[in-house]
């Protein structure tokens, strides 16, 4: 029985399932995965500077359009969430006594995210609009 169970489930169990904390846990994984997958691509495109202006400018020009710019906004918001939620995790892990205040800390993290996301989105949507007009 034990062997069978281990084949279908993780070694770790599902430590947040059914608790409100599962949402920030899932979002942390989704945003982290999105950022690392983009990073893989981004390192390759940046590395093209080593092959000269023709190669680099050709590839970077592909980024300069409104659709890609909206994806860029999504990526920046994913990174912002991952950073703030990561700070929350680190804060509580390094100061375990704060765990009893997890709910207000969670709300503060969400508020910080919204406060930072609004100007970020405003700036990048303006850039997208300018690109679309151009």
């Amino acid at each position, binding site marked *: 029985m034990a062997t069978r169970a281990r084949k279908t*489930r993780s070694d770790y169990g599902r430590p947040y399932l059914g608790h409100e904390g599962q949402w920030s846990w899932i979002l942390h994984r989704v945003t*982290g*995965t999105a950022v690392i997958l983009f990073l893989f691509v981004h390192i390759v495109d940046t590395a093209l500077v080593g092959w000269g202006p023709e190669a680099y400018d050709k590839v970077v020009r592909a980024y300069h359009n409104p659709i890609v710019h909206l994806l860029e906004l999504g990526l920046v918001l994913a990174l*912002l969430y991952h950073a703030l939620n990561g*700070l929350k995790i680190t804060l509580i892990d390094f100061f375990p006594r704060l765990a009893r205040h*997890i*709910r207000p800390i969670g709300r503060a993290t969400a508020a910080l995210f919204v406060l930072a996301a609004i100007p970020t989105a405003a700036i990048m949507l303006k850039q997208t609009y300018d690109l679309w007009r151009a």
Partner: protein
Amino acid sequence: MARTTTGPTAAPLAGEGRAQRDLRVGRERPLGGAELWWWLFMRISGLLLVFLALGHVAVMHLMDGGAERIDFGFVATRWSSVFWRTWDWLMLMLALIHGVNGLRNITLDYVARPGLRFALTMATYVLALVLMVLGTVVVVTFDPSAWPGAVG
């Protein structure tokens, strides 16, 4: 593969208050060994990356019209500064290791078949290693004077 904690799910226990449940639920810190060092690395590198990556976004994507101003000449001017080359290289290494360890954790959680788990983990390591070498070589050796007239 390393087993750090096994626990029940976060489902409420009979007679358990909300505050008690909040404190009980969640993944524990690894008890020791390599997994404890990885646990610590994720948090320290995460703290550094908050500054490195969010700073990178502010400078490259928000200021002065954002990413549209970036071309070969822009990178050449920017990387004439040792400060930015160091920033970019440090961010590259920390973000790759942090991200690949994150992917490893996710693989350990969701991929139970040992062969597939091993293959996925190894593929991620190899990709990360290749990108580390590629990124490092470019950041260290980039010299725009090889293309005269490209920087105006």
